[in-house]
């Protein structure tokens, strides 16, 4: 064992010409191994269970459950719904992503006050967010389904085009845009691989693995959170939850991932 490991090391060292590069490649491999080990027993299950209970719970002044909520495939249909979001909803004449639609259903269908609904959009320690729980449950019902986001309605096309502009918008003290980190293939920040979100395969791999349980945070994080925290690191002001900007950007990312098989909630470092 020891000899073969040493040989592998030597071969690697010769092939890459420097011991340093070998050490770097080894770190990457170790991270891959860590990721594999995490796959079993994904704590996202805990959020899924809570989300399912929330989906079925009768709530609000109008005393209805979210099972009457139409995510685009008819009231109460959850199976495969996320793989077609964001989409145009005729009842509001707008394009909505999952969270935007959930806010709509909670306020209009269940009659809950908007302020109460939006009180905790992201979980924080032992305080869980209903949105992250619902996102875990609803997205899990699209596991194995191919992403199929439509662009037939003019407003869907508009959202995509606006999302593209936002993706490439440079600003802030660091001159960063989403594209600064996500428009070239094979790049990383520190040891973190960066998906090229303008490349079909990379975009599919990235989009289909959100939401994800983040081991480093002990939280389940949704696409809405991913965008929020990317903008924080981009040194932008704070992105409003379920805003039109978030929907447009999600539309751009989701559409670029079309054809990819959805595989979340995933688990990430």
């Amino acid at each position: 064992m020891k000899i073969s490991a040493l040989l592998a090391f030597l071969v690697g060292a010769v092939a890459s010409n420097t011991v340093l590069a070998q050490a770097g490649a080894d770190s990457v491999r170790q991270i891959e191994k860590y990721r594999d080990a995490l796959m079993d027993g994904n704590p996202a299950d805990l959020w899924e269970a809570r989300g399912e209970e929330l989906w079925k719970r009768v709530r609000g002044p109008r005393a209805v459950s979210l099972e009457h909520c139409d995510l685009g495939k008819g009231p109460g249909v959850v199976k495969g719904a996320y793989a077609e979001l964001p989409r145009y909803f005729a009842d509001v004449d707008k394009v909505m992503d999952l969270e935007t639609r959930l806010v709509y259903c909670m306020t209009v269908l269940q009659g809950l006050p908007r302020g109460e609904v939006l009180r905790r959009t992201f979980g924080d320690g032992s305080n869980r967010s209903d949105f992250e729980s619902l996102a875990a449950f609803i997205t899990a019902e699209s596991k194995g389904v191919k992403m199929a986001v439509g662009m037939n309605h003019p407003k869907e096309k508009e959202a995509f085009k606006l999302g593209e502009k936002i993706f490439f918008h440079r600003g802030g003290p660091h001159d960063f845009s989403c594209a600064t980190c996500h428009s070239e293939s094979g790049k990383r920040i520190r040891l973190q691989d960066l998906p090229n979100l303008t490349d079909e395969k990379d975009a599919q791999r990235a989009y289909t693995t959100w939401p994800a349980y983040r081991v480093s945070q002990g939280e389940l994080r949704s696409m809405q959170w991913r965008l929020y925290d990317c903008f924080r690191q981009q040194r932008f002001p704070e992105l409003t939850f379920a805003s039109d900007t978030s929907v447009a950007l999600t539309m751009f990312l989701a559409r670029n991932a079309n054809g990819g098989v959805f595989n979340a909630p995933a688990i990430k470092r």
Partner: protein
Amino acid sequence: MKIMSISNKSLDVLLAVGLLTSCVAFVSDSEYRAQAMKLMGADFKARGQAGLDRLNQDEANAACSRTPADGPLSKSASAAIEKANFARLKYPADGKLLGDWREGERIAQSGVGKQFNDDPSRPAGANCYACHQLAPKELSFGTIGPSLLGFGKLRGTSRAIQEYTFGKLYNPQAYTACSNMPRFGHNGILTEAQIKDLVALLLDPESPVNK
């Protein structure tokens, strides 16, 4: 817009109707850009040190916010950006460009600063390792920018190289339009003293970068 120049009123209406129906199918690029800007203005909230003015763009950022369909910036536009940024380079009044490489290494490691949750009273880091390889003992480095291992060893420490290195850190777009690298001095991310320390990290023969 061209409708306004046509005098025949009934023709105006006809054309307007025609345009309205086709409007849905075709919106110009600049209109999308303006609309996206409007959306962002409404959908971001000022928090901490991050005000809404951060969404605004100077000429370079406006020109460099390009989609793949836009294609790369023209040679003349790139040259104009480089010229404008070069003209605004500000070198230290004391003429000294080399600081302390040890301090430089700390600044290169630190990624704090300018985020809405950062304490603005604390100095910002440069986070060089996020994108570049520098000292060989640091294995956790990114690859968005080129490796800077041996930067000074390869180039020496002549006055010209010191000036270039300071200038590149102060404002990379003085040399490369639309560079991904932040304009650390130009945009007030780092102080002059911090940039000197980074110049030393890159050029000082004693710096681990050149060992």
